[in-house]
């Protein structure tokens, strides 16, 4: 007999909210509302990360995915006056259901039922922020001393990947600024600017 634990109740509440809000985000005609639905869905997924014992990822989810991304998206929606999306065609909706529902069923078939045990009968092991940070910012095989005196040998070694991600973010943001520029900088426009500047200087 399955015990009805508080964490199970929390999971169904948060997970149900996440799925329903995602459905709203995916179907709402008003784009601002869809983005808000997405934000709250991300918020709920942050709660799922908390249930999984990964508090750092939960906070990261709140700050980046539930905070920054919807704000930028709403900002763009406001800038372009593209407030409402065209309703989807009925034929494409039917086709999408024909793809999504079999995929869902096929995926769930590979997930054994929680009642019968199967894969997931073990407990969640919480991950401390300190351990995550040490693993993230050290090279593989390097020993570090944690604050409680124990030593930890890094098994991931993602320091270089971390630095590379920083470069990728920088390039992406510079690229985004260049792409979104109102008037692309071309040779002729810079020439015109210098001529205009010279004319101003003459006057």
């Amino acid at each position: 007999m399955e015990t009805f634990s508080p964490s199970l109740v929390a999971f169904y509440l948060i997970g149900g909210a996440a799925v329903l809000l995602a459905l709203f985000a995916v179907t709402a005609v008003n784009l601002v509302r869809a983005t808000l639905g997405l934000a709250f869905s991300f918020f709920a997924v942050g709660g799922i990360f908390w249930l999984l014992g990964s508090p750092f990822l939960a906070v990261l989810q709140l700050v980046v995915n539930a905070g920054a991304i919807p704000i930028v998206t709403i900002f763009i929606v406001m800038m372009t006056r593209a407030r409402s999306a065209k309703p989807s065609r009925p034929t494409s909706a039917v086709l999408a259901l024909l793809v999504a529902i079999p995929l869902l069923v096929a995926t769930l078939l590979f997930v054994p039922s929680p009642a019968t045990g199967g894969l997931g009968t073990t407990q969640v092991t919480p991950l401390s922020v300190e351990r995550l940070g040490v693993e993230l910012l050290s090279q593989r095989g390097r020993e570090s001393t944690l604050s409680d005196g124990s030593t930890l040998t890094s098994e991931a070694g993602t320091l270089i990947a971390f630095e590379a991600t920083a470069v990728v973010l920088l390039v992406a943001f510079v690229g985004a600024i260049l792409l979104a520029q109102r008037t692309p900088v071309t040779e002729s426009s810079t020439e015109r600017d210098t001529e205009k500047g010279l004319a101003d200087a003459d006057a």
Partner: protein
Amino acid sequence: MLTLNHFLGLSALLFAVGLYGVLTRRNLIAVLISVEVMLNAVLINFVAFARYGDNVQGDLFALFIVAIAAAEVAVGLAIFLNVYKHNGAADTDVLRRMKQ
């Protein structure tokens, strides 16, 4: 008891919802939103497997996915702005004309 399968089921549901959105939506921002939902489903999978198996790699992968997804949204929205300025609308129908 809360098992790994609960999280895998939730992830599959979210992924299907996102896939439905990607296939039906006609506005580019709405498509981007649906892709975000799918990315989140994948995040849940990574973190669930990592925490139930107690290996840190899954959490690190999730961390990197969040960072790269932020970059993806920035570039995606910039492209959206460009398409909007060029055509006065940003639907997938408009992009179809790019072939010509």
